[in-house]
């Protein structure tokens, strides 16, 4: 499969252990699952809200269930996966904190990736334009975006600290390149965290 993965997904695909059991929450059409299956013999399962995405994923031979991260994670047993993955879905859930709690219950570790709302472009847009940012990474307008809980790198770190979770890894992306941890809250377009309870 020569499909180009989104940078945060490529990073996750590189990081998961060979042969791990993985639950991809909000797996879309299964691009990450297929990549992990083909390159690392990962036993991947998916959960996805959109029916046509599910059909596409099942159509490529993946085990994907149509369902909602906010309501359906409760049906997965404790510690039934090595990793639970939530890529660019956190900000679309009704209760992001509870969803991450569920990920850490189901998976021994959890990858969480999200667009950083505090990136300087967004800040400029608000500060000078006085308008909610519409950027390459946040292309939708305020009224039709699926993102209902905008979050920044520092917000997320604060949540991690408050809940007493452990950060096993963190990566920051600018375009498709990794960027420094310094001032990530200002310069990172994307953040990927690997958490443990």
């Amino acid at each position, binding site marked *: 499969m020569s499909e180009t993965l989104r940078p945060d997904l490529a990073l996750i695909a590189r990081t998961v252990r060979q042969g791990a059991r993985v639950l991809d929450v909000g797996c879309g059409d299964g691009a990450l699952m297929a990549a992990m299956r083909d390159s690392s013999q990962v036993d991947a399962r998916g959960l996805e809200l959109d029916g046509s995405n599910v059909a596409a994923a099942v159509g490529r*031979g*993946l085990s994907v269930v149509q369902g909602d991260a906010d309501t359906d994670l409760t*049906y997965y*047993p404790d510690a039934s996966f090595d990793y639970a993955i939530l890529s660019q879905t956190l900000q679309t859930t009704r209760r992001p904190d509870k969803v991450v709690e569920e990920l850490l219950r189901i998976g021994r570790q959890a990858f969480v990736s999200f667009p950083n709302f505090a990136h300087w472009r967004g800040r400029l847009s608000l500060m000078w334009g006085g308008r909610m940012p519409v950027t390459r990474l946040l292309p939708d307008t305020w009224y039709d975006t699926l993102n209902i809980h905008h979050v920044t790198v520092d917000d997320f770190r604060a949540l991690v600290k408050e809940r007493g979770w452990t950060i096993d890894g963190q990566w920051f992306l600018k375009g498709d390149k990794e960027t420094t941890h310094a001032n990530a809250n200002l310069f990172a377009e994307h953040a990927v965290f690997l958490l443990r309870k």
Partner: protein
Amino acid sequence: MASVPISEDNRFGLRRQARLAGPLRLSSGAQLGPVDIAYETYGRMNADKSNVILICHALTGDQYVASDHPVTGKPGWWWRLVGEGKPVDPARHFIVCSNVIGSCMGSSGPASLDPVTGDPHAMRFPVLTIADMVRAQALLLDHLGVDRLSAVIGGSMGGMQALTWPTLFPDRVESCVVIASTARHSAQNIAFHEVGRQAIMADPHWRGGDYYADGQAPMAGLAVARMAAHITYLSEAGLTEKFGRRLQGRDAKTFGFDADFQVESYLRHQGLSFVERFDANSYLYITRAMDYYDIAEDHGGSLAKAFTATSARFCLVSFDTDWLYPTAESRIIVHALNASGAQASFVELSSPFGHDAFLLECPELNRVVDGFLRGGRA
């Protein structure tokens, strides 16, 4: 790949029938034997017998899944899914479809003859369950020399059999496709069936089920049963689109009780054409089997427990306008499969056709089933 030479083996091909000694021990405790099973096979079993797919039919279905029906002349009931170039393809798969026991298309049922008395069993035939139908299919597979199923596939009552397979024979099933179905019959499902049964039993020609000798079957009752059931297979939107309030072959209401409306005429036609091909007692027995169906009940009330012994992969599909076996029923199964750690896929597809959607044109269904079946070979 080398194939088992089957051309001269009369166990394989169209319009087959096997008499299996049994006896089959039924859920009720009764025994059935010998067991007649009418079936068809398509394609060839490969050398390692790894390409076998069992198709399970619905309440009023039969073994003619991909060949013309001998009574109606219509093409096989699942020709959209099973056939050359389809997801289930005789060029690649060895496909088996058998008539469920209790039915009337050649398998043992109330209309078949009691070998002891030489008369039809009628209501003396033992009451069956979905599990009994599956056990009979397993007997047939033994007879055909099939140990393991690459896949078992069914919609509606066929889905109930498909889902039951890995619970009874966890090591004989590699994958399981359950379409527009459920893990248990709901109160509403049972209620509709009871209406149908009462219509049949209220027909004076039914006579306690012993109507075979005098040539007067309870056709009016069976037709009404079919009409009531047929409504549950459709959707309100589908009925409105197809018929609306349009009148049938007339310009004005007659102020009588003729079939003024197109929808009445359509239902009457459905009822009348059904009685030509179906036995009323079989309708009683099969609806009863469906009502008794509750997989969790057979596993101490836990649906998840039913699937812990199997390593089969599962694919569930529901349709958004199906109110007979709505999406919520499939979700119950999916949650149980997740809890048991089984490999499960599930998708709700969109269709205007209600429950019947699984038999109708739906390219996404074909794509999902094809991908799922091929996924097992990845």
